[in-house]
């Protein structure tokens, strides 16, 4: 056994007391084995991953249990012994490579630090080795990319460079902490393929932490499911996927089954709620959108899909009037809207509402939930006193958060999903016809995200709202969309009803997007690589278009 954790209890300090984070978890890892750790946020995945390195973040302590690595007890080992292990035999790959690289040093400088510090290689050898690793991880221009600064390479490349850095001493164990969560699907697949290949080649053991089941299915030999610091179950990947024994695991697996029934096609000649016609937009002199056109009809959801930088959010900014387009027009119920939001009337502003991706920054942290929701009600309808309170109670009823419990809370006292619900209530408070949902579920756990999607679907049916649903997650599109607009580099590549979009033949780009979404089948990545070839996936394939 490489890593043996027995009856490990971890506690975190908050509100002047120690609260449990991990309750008596056992973990075993053989040499060369990849263990997937999955669970919702707050399940203690990252804390457990770090504890496997014998490390605790500030404000966290190990209260009981043992962690041993290759026969060395990490909890009682001296600082000197641990220094000899970390970086050399145990390495860590963080979620955000952009935040983990030091922006002031070149990538290769940071790469060679561990080997030279541990006295494994000389500077020159280590640089050569770094370039070889970059080549293996299929980074473009491997001989020179290391001499760039972290901000000069893309997010996916940086994540691979970080994996190379973790590999620099050929460790026995790597902890991957959500290494692909912040990446686009087409970038993610490249990183996944690279990580898997290099881990197999050097027979490195790994703990792969993620909340994405489809990803973990591709990477792990065994999966351990955590829930609020308790182990739910552990089994090898195939058994776990085909026959989970616990209710919680089954519910995790079932999340992706939510799909709305097909709606009748739009009546020909009906006036769309929102019509975007030939919109061009630019940030300063940099053009971002080119001739974007699509319609959104009453009671329909149009999903706008694309990678980051494809112009999805910019389109939303044009519709809301935050970024007046250079050309083209946006009409609302047949009537052309002023391009600048400052020129729109109060009633026009009321009609278009927005729900944001990050509920943390979308709600004022110093304002109570009740005031957040009552402000738009009061602002648009002029209700005051008891009538206002009654309307707010109604809205909170609609988003399934009873006013009695939540009215006086601050956003910091809510969970991520609850915050997102407050964001929805704030949009509803204006009684709009049209709501823009900008990646509303991408920051949420899958179970919570599903709840939000169901809520949005219900509200649409009850209030016949129209949604523009911006997302990069095709599973979400499948669940909620009626129509799909695929965007790339500021252009609409393909659009049509969902049913048509998900059945071949596709536009080449749509095909690539669809094929890059990980599936639950553990052989998916292997098959895809066999089908397409390693150089024909992800961003490499996008570049060839």
């Amino acid at each position, binding site marked *: 056994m490489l890593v043996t954790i027995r009856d490990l209890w971890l506690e975190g300090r908050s509100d*002047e007391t120690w609260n449990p984070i991990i309750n008596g978890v056992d973990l075993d890892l053989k040499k060369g084995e990849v263990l997937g750790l999955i669970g919702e946020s707050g399940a203690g995945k990252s804390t457990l991953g770090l504890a496997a390195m014998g490390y605790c973040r500030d404000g966290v302590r190990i209260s009981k249990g043992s962690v041993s690595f290759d026969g060395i007890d990490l909890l009682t080992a001296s*600082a000197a012994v641990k220094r000899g292990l970390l970086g050399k035999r145990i390495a860590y790959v963080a979620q955000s490579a952009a935040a983990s690289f030091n922006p002031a040093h070149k990538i290769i400088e940071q790469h060679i630090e561990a080997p030279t510090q541990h006295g494994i290689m000389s500077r020159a050898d280590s640089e050569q080795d770094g370039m070889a690793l970059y080549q293996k991880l299929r980074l473009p221009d491997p001989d020179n990319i290391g001499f760039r600064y972290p901000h000069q390479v893309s997010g996916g490349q940086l994540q691979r460079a970080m994996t190379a850095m973790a590999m620099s001493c050929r460790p026995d164990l790597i902890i991957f902490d959500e290494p692909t969560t912040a990446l686009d699907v087409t970038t993610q697949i490249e990183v996944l393929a690279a990580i898997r290949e290099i881990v197999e080649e050097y027979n490195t053991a790994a703990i792969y932490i993620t909340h994405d089941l489809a990803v973990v299915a591709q990477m792990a030999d065994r999966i351990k499911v955590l829930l609020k610091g308790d182990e739910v179950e552990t089994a090898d990947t195939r058994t776990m996927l085909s026959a989970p024994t616990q209710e919680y695991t089954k519910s995790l697996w079932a999340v992706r089954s939510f799909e709305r029934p097909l709606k009748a096609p739009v009546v020909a000649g009906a006036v769309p709620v929102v019509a975007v016609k030939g919109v061009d937009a630019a940030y300063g002199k940099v053009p971002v959108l080119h001739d974007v056109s699509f319609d959104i009809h009453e009671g329909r959801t149009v999903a706008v899909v694309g990678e980051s930088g494809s112009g999805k959010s910019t389109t939303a900014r044009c519709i809301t009037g935050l970024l007046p387009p250079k050309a083209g027009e946006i009409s609302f119920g047949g009537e052309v809207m002023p391009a600048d939001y400052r020129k729109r009337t109060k009633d026009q502003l009321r009609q278009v509402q927005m729900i944001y991706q990050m509920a943390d*920054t*979308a709600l*004022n942290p*110093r304002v109570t939930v009740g005031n957040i929701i009552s402000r738009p009600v009061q602002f648009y309808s002029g209700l005051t006193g008891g009538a206002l309170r009654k309307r707010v109670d109604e809205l909170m009823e609609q988003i399934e958060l009873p006013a009695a419990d939540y009215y006086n809370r601050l956003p910091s006292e809510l969970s991520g999903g609850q915050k997102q619900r407050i964001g929805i209530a704030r949009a509803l408070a204006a009684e709009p016809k049209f709501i823009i949902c900008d990646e509303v579920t991408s920051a949420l756990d899958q179970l919570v995200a599903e709840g939000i999607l169901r809520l949005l679907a219900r509200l649409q049916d009850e209030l016949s709202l129209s949604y523009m649903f911006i997302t990069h997650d095709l599973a979400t599109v499948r669940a909620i969309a009626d129509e799909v607009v695929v965007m790339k580099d500021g252009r609409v590549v393909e659009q049509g009803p969902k049913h048509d979009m998900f059945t071949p033949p596709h536009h080449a780009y749509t095909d690539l997007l669809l094929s890059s979404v990980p599936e639950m089948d553990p052989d998916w990545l292997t098959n895809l690589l066999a089908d397409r070839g390693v150089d024909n996936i992800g961003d490499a394939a996008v570049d060839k278009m």
Partner: protein
Amino acid sequence: MIFESFIGNLATLLIGIAVLGYVFRAVGQRVTQNAPFFRDMPYGVAFGYVLGLVILIWLVWGFMQSRSEDPMIANKFFFLGIAIQGFIGFAIAAWLFRLLGRAVGTAGSKKLFRSMPLTASFGILVIIIYIFLAVFAGAIAPYGQEEILQGVAANIAAGGDPALGGHPDFPLGTDQIGRDIMSRLIYGAQNTVGIAFVTTVLAFLLGGTFGFLAATLGGWLDQVLSRAVDVLMAIPSLIFALLLMTIASVWSATLGIPLTIFMIVIIAVIDSTRVYRLARAVGQNIVVMDYIEAAKLRGEGLGYLMFREILPNATAPLLAEFGLRFCFVFLTIASLSFLGVGIQPPLADWGTMVRDLAGFINYAGFAPTASITPLLAAGAIALLTVAVNFVVDWMLHKSSGLKE
């Protein structure tokens, strides 16, 4: 020669501490059989422990010296003795005050005091005492601030011991024209602290409003305001204030407006530039938040954006700056008064008091009770500055802790 021997002594001392640090760690490891505390102790930390111990021993020795029978030795360590006594006295007072706060008051205030560090409770205690003195100066002070006491000698030393030039009726002595120092110190709290507070509030109103305005609107307004502030900040503030005060003293005579009003406005404008910079920087970080965008898209006006959406999120850094700025304003007023253009006599002011009696500081080596007179006012300034900073530190810590 003296200098050389000083260097030699210092070197010996440092080498001694270095060796002792090494021995301390080694013995610790041996005795505790490699407990993690000693095993993982870096050498620098061991050195620090020994250095701290040496300083502590020296302080205790110095305190004993200050109680010595021989006045020659005792005088040398007089101020060290007072400092140690004051430190311990204030620590005990702060501790008792915190105990009181935990026992009395509402549930909210009790909770506040429970998590309060001793430094913060010291700061709050001192600020409360100052406020009390400033408000009730007229009732507390035994004499008037301008009152030249008839038949009382000038320059009575502090301490109230006639053998050392004191007088029991004037425990803190009298100044060069026979006014009671204690009364003037108490009135000084009213004048200096009161004026400093008004000035700081004015500076924050000006700087905060313009800063938020620049952050929210941006564009040319931001450019104009920011460049204007740059120009003001490019001029050394004390010299600028001196210059303006000289001009104002002419105006005040012709217009009949008290010079103090001019001083408040001048210092407030100069200090508002610093507040502007902070408010603008903090505001800019807040205006990019999605909730501001949501409010803009709702059609909210500028006032609502600035005061209901931005201000509540900027209070923590602004409050911290308020504490610091208050200290700076306070010191500027004291400096101006010391230079003779600030608060005008016969009003009592701590800065003026230091200047008027500054000559006595030369006697510190052999007649500490005589030299303490100017230092009392300086000490009053220092104490308030330290207290305000402690409270501000604590508030900052608390507000950043809440965010997590």
